């Protein structure tokens, strides 16, 4: 339909460069010594201290705080990302199933309560939420970290939309074959939603991993720090050092963004599908 247009490619490449360059500089600079960065500024090409910096960030406890290293923080982030996405999928597939496939008196009332949670992000009710979690004794625990974040019903809505698009005939056929509500859900509905579940899983994993404000409020115990919030601690630490460890701070940023970026790049098709479908 169209010819090759050099100008279009130029614009696209500028876009790619605009997005890539900051990360490139951060990565290249993280492989230099802090003295080099302090003397010559950020670097555009790689230095010789990749292993030194990254192994120190990943394994040394004393580097930033007394008890944690990046490996532990990455583990916590993984727990948060997986707990958040898996928890959300389990709870929301069940709730959406009840709302779409069952006739029960309080159904639409519950639906509106769940719907209302979409309206108010956690950020506008942080202090009372903090108090609730603190009263329940859930500060510094994975439960306190994950459960309140699951409260928003985004995934429930998504599954509700999807279930509504499943043809009526499928339920009719299943009933004629004698399938009850449990069999229908496990043997028919869940397998049908496979790609949707995968898409939601990827999106929610990224959302969970990237949480920042809530982990800051919830965790004072360093062994529960996630890697994204650990960054803030490092910023504070930087100011204390005689030679600020810029290289390590940059290395931690790279480590914090690498897992979700890899997930999104590898599963690009699913995640784009999930995002675009949820628009409808």
């Amino acid at each position, binding site marked *: 339909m169209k010819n090759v247009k050099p100008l279009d490619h130029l614009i696209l490449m500028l876009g790619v460069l605009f997005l890539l360059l900051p990360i490139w500089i951060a990565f290249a600079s993280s492989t230099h010594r802090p003295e080099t960065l302090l003397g010559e500024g950020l670097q555009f090409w790689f230095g010789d201290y990749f292993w030194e910096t990254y192994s120190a960030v990943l394994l040394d406890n004393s580097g930033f705080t007394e008890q944690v290293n990046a490996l532990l923080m990455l583990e916590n982030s993984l727990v948060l990302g997986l707990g958040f996405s898996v928890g959300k999928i389990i709870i929301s597939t069940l709730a959406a199933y009840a709302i779409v496939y069952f006739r029960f008196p309080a159904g639409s009332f519950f639906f509106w309560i769940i719907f209302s949670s979409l309206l108010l992000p956690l950020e506008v009710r942080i*202090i009372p*939420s903090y108090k609730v979690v603190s009263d329940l004794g859930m500060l510094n625990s994975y439960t306190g970290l994950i459960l309140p974040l699951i409260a928003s019903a985004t995934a429930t809505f998504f599954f509700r939309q999807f279930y509504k698009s499943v043809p009526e005939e499928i339920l009719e056929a299943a009933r004629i074959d004698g399938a009850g509500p449990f069999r229908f859900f496990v043997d028919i509905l869940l397998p049908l939603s496979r790609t949707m579940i995968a898409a939601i899983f990827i999106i929610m994993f*990224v959302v969970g991993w990237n949480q920042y404000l809530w982990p800051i409020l919830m965790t004072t115990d360093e062994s529960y720090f996630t890697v994204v919030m650990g960054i803030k601690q490092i910023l504070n630490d930087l100011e204390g050092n005689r030679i600020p460890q810029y290289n390590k701070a940059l290395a931690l940023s790279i480590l914090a963004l690498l897992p979700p970026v890899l997930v999104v790049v590898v599963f690009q098709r699913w995640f*784009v599908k999930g995002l675009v479908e949820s628009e409808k």
Partner: protein
Amino acid sequence: MKRQQFDHISLPYLLIAPQLAIIMIFFVWPAAQAIYQSFMLEDPFGLASQFVGFDNFREVVSSDHYATSAVFTLVFSALVAFLSMAIALLLAVKADGIIHGQSAYKIMLTWVYAVAPAVAGMIGTFLFDRSIGSLNHLLNATGWPFNPQLDVFDASFTVILVSVWKQVSVNFIYFLAGLQSIPRAVREAALIDCRNGFRRFWTVTLPLLAPTGFFVLVINITYAFFDTFGVIDTMTRGAPGGGTATLVYKVYQDGFLGADLGGSSAQSVILMILVLALTVVQFRVLEKRIHY
């Protein structure tokens, strides 16, 4: 709802119970608390509190800091939404138009979606750092006495740039999907009727893209209001002088760092009303949404 449904007395309640319990405990109860607290004044030790009516609201609304923050939030959101949407639309139109290498560009332009705002802010901090930042030196070399530590304009510039950078990818995904859902027949007809690519874009493509554009706008406003918390907290913490504190950041600053429970709750409630208003507008427009 489905025409065919199961009739079962206890099962639906059982299925919906986990979601409902979490929402009641971690959403409905805290939200109610925020509303309750916004009408109360707590003594400095947190031992007693008394009902003060709309005093907290009056205090918040008449405070200069709040006005500064509201103005900043407005300008910030408008600029972040406009710039990131404009860049993303340009890239999406170009990516849609080319045949070779489209999937490579798609990957190279969408991965930033996965970067946390706080991480983006952290990297931005270093790029603009006084002693090591390359962007800082670059801007100084152009004769701009760039100093985000002291100058509100410069500080706003840095948080806006990083927030835009972070948001281009998401907008690109939606715009590209929107463009690709325009039927082939319509595109080809337009191509025959109108040879001028620029005019074709304004008269055919853009109107067809309007529903997507509106949806993306809502997402961007939500993003600029709430998700940029991480960017602001890592880059400026509202400094200098509260000039870069969004309304959401101020709720956190006043309530959590400043321990002003009543004032912070009143701010929360104002934000709740804002979000509700936004949602109502969104539904109104969506109802009128034209389908081609």
